[in-house]
């Protein structure tokens, strides 16, 4: 355990030699083209960390929000708890979990799931409670039960706010997952840390992380358009 967190930079033996651009830590398009394959598995690890954490985080937040929707009194303390969790620096959270769950993706995912809650739980709760009383009354007047009201009226109307939370949670998780190597979970951050003074490396690994965040953001935005056809109808 003690050796795994040694700064990788200090262990890294420079594999680059000879070429002037690489040996001067420059930005070298040729080197980037030749070495792209070394970024594939960190990128995949990063994607897995993000998708799994946001997925589990969403399931937990959804269940807690439905509970909070029924029992109003638990929503304030839960919400406060999510913000305290969010306050803990992610590096500290990763490192403090290691003695319990060991080095590896599991530890990183536990912490990342914790960080998603602040966006997901709150947005789902807000989305549900922002549904207009008149709308709910109309639905009740049509004979919908409370359960039907939730699934057919309240949740569909809360979709934009829920997906807004999901977008922020995904982008934030991509960001925080660059530090997941402190929990021994790899990802693009490990690649950045390995050779932090080499411009080509920093640009490619950092750029991929930013690109990944943008792609998640756009995918969920697209999902939001598909899931709320009435919004487009109203705009037309």
């Amino acid at each position, binding site marked *: 355990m003690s050796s795994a967190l040694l700064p990788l930079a200090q262990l890294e033996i420079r594999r680059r030699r000879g070429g002037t651009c690489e040996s001067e830590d420059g930005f070298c398009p040729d080197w980037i083209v030749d070495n792209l394959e070394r970024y594939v598995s960190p990128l995949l690890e990063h994607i897995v960390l993000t998708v799994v954490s946001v997925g589990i985080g969403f399931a937990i937040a959804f269940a807690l929000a439905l509970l909070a929707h029924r029992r109003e009194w638990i*929503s*304030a303390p839960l919400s406060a708890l999510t913000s305290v969790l969010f306050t803990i*620096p992610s*590096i500290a959270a990763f490192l403090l979990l290691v003695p319990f769950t060991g080095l590896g993706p599991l530890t990183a995912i536990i912490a990342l799931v914790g960080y998603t809650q602040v966006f997901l739980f709150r947005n789902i709760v807000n989305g549900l409670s922002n549904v207009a009383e008149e709308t709910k009354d109309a639905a009740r007047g049509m004979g919908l039960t409370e359960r039907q009201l939730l699934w057919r009226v309240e949740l569909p109307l809360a979709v934009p706010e829920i997906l807004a939370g999901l977008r922020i949670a995904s982008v934030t998780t991509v960001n925080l997952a*660059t530090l997941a190597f402190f929990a021994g979970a790899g990802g693009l951050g490990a690649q950045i840390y390995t050779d*932090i*003074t080499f411009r080509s490396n920093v640009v490619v690994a950092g750029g991929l992380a930013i690109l990944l*965040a943008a792609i998640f*953001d756009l995918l969920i935005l697209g999902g939001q358009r598909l899931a709320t056809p009435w919004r487009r109808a109203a705009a037309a």
Partner: protein
Amino acid sequence: MTDPAASAPFAANPFVEAIEFLITPRESVTGGVQVGGLDEMLTLTVNHLLLSSAAIAIACVVALPLGLWLGHVGKGEFLAISASNVGRAVPTLALIAFFIAFLGIGFVNVLVALTLLAIPPLLTNTYVGVRGVDRDAVDAARGMGMSEPQIVRRVELPLSVRSVFGGLQLSAISVVATAILGPLASVETLGTPIVSVNVYGQPGLLGASILVAGLAILIYALLAVAQRALTPQGLKAGRSDAPGILRRIPFLQRQGSAQPT
């Protein structure tokens, strides 16, 4: 496990060891120097706080006037809102790494990187806060003969205190968290025992993590208290128009309502 502590007959609780590290100095893993103990941890904490507060102070000087002005004239919504979306998408490690790789190590570079990190939440929250001020209140102030700067200072700023502090809390959290990476650029902070774990050992790493987590929560709580103290009485009384959860936790409220663009 290759950890020497694990093979010892009585493997000490890592957290107990970490607390011991914070209190009493010990010989470093590499030998020869004393590390840890109250004195060194105090120095590192002070460094950490100086770096963080300098970054947040500069960010306030830049972002608050800009946010207030943009909000007051109602322009630049795209800039003010997308600032925090872009800020969120740039990993803090990548930001620090860009600075180290392209501009080199040193206090100033880390300070600038942390300042860049602190600006977006402050700018967006200030803008959103000012735009959220009741236009009738602004019109009433204008009708009373206040000049535009007076309106900003005496009406819009006090009424958006909650949102501004929400941004300040977010900025402070991310700056304090990212200052851990300072040692990568040769700036000593509480991140030093974490980054140089081969010198400080596992207890140093855990001890510094405990300290920095506590520090972040403390700063967050102090800012919440300050926000409450600075919020005009009238706003505290009139908080019944939104669900309780929204009103109670300002930084959540603003973050949630700020839709990504």
